[in-house]
């Protein structure tokens, strides 16, 4: 199984950085998500995860380092988290880490809503570098 890598970009739309590793089961989704066609972007991510779950059936560590996502992206994130929850319910080993800026109260509420919505336990990891990183992207 191949790794799935998407270099994030910051142009007219914001493409998040994706690095799903088929060897280690470590998956990262970072940056900002505001896309021209949100479903078209997220479908391959969901397919990759379904494939990994069906073929490898090993542990997944899902690291989210998103600093911004619009509401269309938020629906797709929900699909990803629901998929991970289903796998966990079938006995799969899942760790979800969500790196966030402690000053960003809206994001903390958003993560809490995902926990309520999916029933997944999400590890909240404060990361002061996230906001800094976001500013650098524009230089």
């Amino acid at each position, binding site marked *: 199984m191949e790794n799935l890598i998407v270099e994030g970009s910051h142009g*007219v739309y914001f493409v998040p950085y994706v690095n799903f590793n088929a060897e280690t089961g470590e998956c990262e989704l970072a940056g900002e998500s505001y896309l021209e066609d949100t*479903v078209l972007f997220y479908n391959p991510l969901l397919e990759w995860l379904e494939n990994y779950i069906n073929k490898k059936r090993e542990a997944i560590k899902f690291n989210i380092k998103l600093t911004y996502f*619009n509401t269309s992206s938020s629906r797709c994130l929900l699909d990803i988290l629901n998929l991970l929850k289903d796998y966990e319910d079938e006995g799969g080993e899942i760790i979800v880490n969500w790196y966030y800026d402690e000053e960003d109260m*809206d994001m903390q509420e958003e993560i809490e809503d995902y926990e309520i*919505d999916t029933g997944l336990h999400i590890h909240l990891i404060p990361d002061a570098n996230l906001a800094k990183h976001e500013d650098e992207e524009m230089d």
Partner: protein
Amino acid sequence: MEANHLEKKPLETNKFDLFKYHSLFNQNVQISYKGPFESKVLSVLGNYIKFTIGKNPKASKKIFNIFIELAQNIAHYSAEKNLFGVEEGVGSLVIAEYSDYYAFSTGNIVKNEDVIVIIEKIELINSLDREQLREYKRVQRNLPQREKGNANIGLIQVALTSANPLDIEVTLIDDKYSFFAITVKVDK
């Protein structure tokens, strides 16, 4: 025919009064834009909002989030399309700064038959407290995607992000169209 709110007049009287237009804006207005809500234009405006408008990064981020959701609504749903053949909706946007808040407004032409639905949606949003609003968002987000996208959850998110009521004003233009304006406050 799409909505055309300019009356057909002889050329001389139809000449655009730029001074009058310019004088409409007081010094509180930071940005104003009227035109197609096209992705490249939105990206320039969005970046300006995100990185320049706020001496206050928290407020900038909130205004940016609100901007994206409302701008997308106009791009997808405005009943007025631009004359250059692009599909994007046409609308207006104003950001004004006051001593303790920013006021972010957008406006666009809507079909009269859609007005009631929008007003009801916004009245519902305004009637909910924060916890109820989060619950409402979760319920709506779990519904299957509707064909025309998700304006509903966008407006809920705008209300959550602003943490203030949504202020709307609808002005009847003719028997087919109205102008819909929404103003959202972001505290400093």
